[in-house]
């Protein structure tokens, strides 16, 4: 156990003068076997994609191939970012290839790999849009975002200094074009949209939406969270999107790592290329080099992003190729539709692609999810998007077999059939029982030092 009780306090001696150093340090001091047992035990108390199905809507939890881990662990992949370009042609070459693959997949003209996560990609994309408007002497103050969008969209727009205009959905769960018309103005800097949207629905009016946004002088931003539904079938660039981010940890199977690292490359159309972050990689006649685009927004990461994650995405894309990427989308969509067919909860909107949002109806969706844990599966995303009451947002991905989907459906149906008392006291078959979130927030204890103080 690594804890306050396992810590050892040591005096800190040094050749430095005493007034420049600390006096003591208390940290855990396990032997290597103790360390191995500690973290092995913790891993056993954790659910991952290799533990069972993990159908978290909008999170795209798919299998992470093993060989990409081996590539990322190579010593020649781990070089210092300040090395000369002449000596890092291999790394720059791989970055350039990945930029090219992603640009092709998204229908974009150029891609930067610098953003270290999807939300960082959004921030980068919105800064690019802002720089574009400013370069045109066109100060704009608003970003329009559908109510059902990811929370990061709203936070990103605010971070970039924009006011957020929230856009309601129509009765079909799609963008309400009349409401969009009303929201658009000379103040509109961008509309942020994912397609398919968070209900899994394809925005069929996308070309009209793009035209409306462009007519108003705005930029159309594509949130790539749901790109797994479209690989090889449709491209954001062809739909009229000007900027997009890719979540390589979703679409391109790099591990989510319990909350990161991800990587959030950003693609842009040609007219926005000059605003990309510094540095950008390009091919020359003799190799590869980095440069600062003419009107670059500057830096969005200390160096050039989460390189080892990008390396895994590169390997995944070359493993699948055109046919594999298209098949991944096809099977992801087939799996979502098949699973939806098997479950008892109501699904109010369709037809959907790779994910669907069921409603727990009279049940509390969070309770229903806890009940599903009792059947050895991970529950879907709950309570969001709010368009669907007591939402269970479900995305099985392409990796699940029919048999696993049937198991997952059984867990949904068991939760659906559970009485109130049972689900309110679920889970009862997991290592830990229902955890008291309220007391954790009311009385924050965020370190073992805080626990010690309490005792």
């Amino acid at each position, binding site marked *: 156990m690594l804890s306050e009780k396992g810590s050892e306090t040591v005096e800190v001696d040094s050749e430095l003068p005493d007034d420049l150093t600390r006096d003591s340090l208390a*940290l855990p001091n396990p032997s290597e076997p103790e360390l191995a047992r500690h973290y092995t035990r913790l*891993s056993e108390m954790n659910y991952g994609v290799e533990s069972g199905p993990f159908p978290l809507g909008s999170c795209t939890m798919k299998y992470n191939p093993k060989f990409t881990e081996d590539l990322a662990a190579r010593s020649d992949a781990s070089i210092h970012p300040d090395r000369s370009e002449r000596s890092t042609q291999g790394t720059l070459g791989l970055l350039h290839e990945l930029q090219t693959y992603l640009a092709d997949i998204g229908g974009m003209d150029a891609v930067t790999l610098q953003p270290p996560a999807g*939300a960082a990609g959004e921030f980068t994309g919105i800064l690019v849009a802002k720089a574009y408007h400013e370069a045109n002497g066109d100060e704009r103050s608003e970003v329009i975002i559908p109510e059902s969008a990811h929370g990061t969209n709203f936070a990103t727009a605010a*971070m970039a200094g924009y006011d957020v205009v929230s856009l309601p959905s129509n009765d079909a769960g799609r963008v309400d074009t009349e409401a969009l018309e009303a929201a658009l103005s000379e103040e509109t800097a961008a509309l942020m949209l994912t397609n398919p949207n968070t209900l899994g629905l394809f925005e069929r009016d996308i070309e009209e939406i793009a035209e409306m946004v462009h007519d108003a002088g705005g930029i159309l931003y594509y949130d790539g969270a749901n790109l797994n539904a479209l690989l090889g079938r449709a491209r954001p660039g062809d739909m009229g999107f000007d900027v997009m981010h890719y979540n390589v940890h979703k679409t391109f199977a790099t591990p989510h790592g319990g909350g990161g690292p991800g990587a959030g490359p950003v693609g842009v159309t040609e007219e926005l290329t000059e605003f990309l972050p510094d540095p950008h990689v390009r091919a020359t006649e003799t190799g590869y080099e980095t440069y600062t685009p003419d009107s670059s927004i500057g830096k969005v990461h200390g160096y050039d992003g989460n390189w080892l994650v990008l390396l895994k995405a590169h390997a995944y894309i070359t493993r699948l190729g055109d*046919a594999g990427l298209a098949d991944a989308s096809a099977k992801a969509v087939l799996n979502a539709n098949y699973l939806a067919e098997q479950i008892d909860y109501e699904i109010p909107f369709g037809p959907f692609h790779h994910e669907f949002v069921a409603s727990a109806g009279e049940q509390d969706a969070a309770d229903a999810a806890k009940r599903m844990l009792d059947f050895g599966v991970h529950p879907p995303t709950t309570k969001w998007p709010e368009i669907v009451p007591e939402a269970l947002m479900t995305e099985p991905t392409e990796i699940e077999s029919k048999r696993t989907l049937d198991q997952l459906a059984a867990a949904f149906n068991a939760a659906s059939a559970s009485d109130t008392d049972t689900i309110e006291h679920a889970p009862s078959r997991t290592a830990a*029982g229902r*955890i008291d979130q309220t007391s954790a927030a009311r009385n924050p204890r*965020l370190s073992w030092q805080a626990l010690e103080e309490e005792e």
Partner: protein
Amino acid sequence: MSGSPYAPHTTSETTAMLDAVGVDSEEALFDIPESVRFDGEFGIDAKSEQAARRAVASKLADNDDLTEFLGRGHYDHYVPSVVDHLADRSEFITSYTQYQPEVAQGFLQALFEYQSMLVELTGLDVANCSMYDAATALGEAATLADRLRSVSGTRVLVPDLLHEGRRGVLDNYVAGGDLTVETYPTTDGNVDREALAERVDETTAMVYAENPTVRGTIEEGLDTVGDLADEHDALFTLGTDIVALALLEEPASVGADVVVGDGSALGLGSAYGFGLGLFACRGDREFLRQVPGRLVGASEDSDDRRAYTLTLQTREQHIRRERATSNICSNQAWVALRTAMHVASLGPDGLVELANDSVRRARETAARLDALTGVQAPVHDRHHFREFVARVDQPAEAIAADLEAEGYAVHAVGDHEIQVCVTETNEQALDGFVAAVSEVVR
């Protein structure tokens, strides 16, 4: 190859599933208007696993095999094998954010332990469980200052020697608010405290300093910087790294309100700039409400057993949306796990020893270079940590290029200044390096 190697469907299963859904082809499931369907090709050929692996390896082989003496805020320390093996356990690496804590106790406890280690190392009350890298963590510190009602002013003051990557990111993070960034001068690598005192006033929101600095010098008298910030109602943010924290003055004891920096100095290696952002701050109520990023808290389960959960989520983007304290969703949790593992594997003695070695190696290496004709090292009359700047008579760019031809990488940081960083990963190459410098400086 006709499909994804990771989709398990047999032809008959696919048919059965299509039947169950009531369509006759996968194509029929795509509700995409004809006008925006894509029927082209990317031209990416599917490869066998072996071929995909070989393609990446062959490209990486185009990198020159150099021994790096590079640092400037990003460091290569030896990562013990036990870290790789434990962190790669699939339940850790293939999991998502811990939204269902009942089946995520392992990762939650590991992150709680990481937070606790940072609390011990910084002396501050609260640490989040990771930011992207040191540069973005600095940006987050500035926006925290902007949000705190208890801090007045809009000017962020940073040293003139601030790493260009950190400065660039900071500029972008403050662009959406009312903040402006200004530099204050340094003397001989360290904060010029008198000059800083002239610049700090009631319009200052945040004062940023680093220890060790980007040139590897160790600051003296940071407590006076803390006092200065405090007197003028500004936040004092200190930049550092996880190894330095084991040895140098505790940030809390010099008055730091926030600590940011590089955590990947342990647990990750160079990784071409892939990082882990440290973020710790005071635990006052106002700070707790405004701190960016995820927090793991201790709680109890239904049987009153100790349990962990993500907490204070009302600050986060999925709850507060445009009023969130940060847009961060995916962060660097797995890297934080690796760093915590590395810290635990060293233990307090091992970490202090590594930090002390970082002082010794810089001093000894500088002395060896100083003994060469045409080199003065270190140029700053300071104590150093891991790295130092050396003056060379020849143009620095030419020296760096000549050294590269000999198989060594150093920074050229001025017309006649190179910077050299030594850790346990390149120490064994020191004799050859010193001989090479001796050759090329003539």
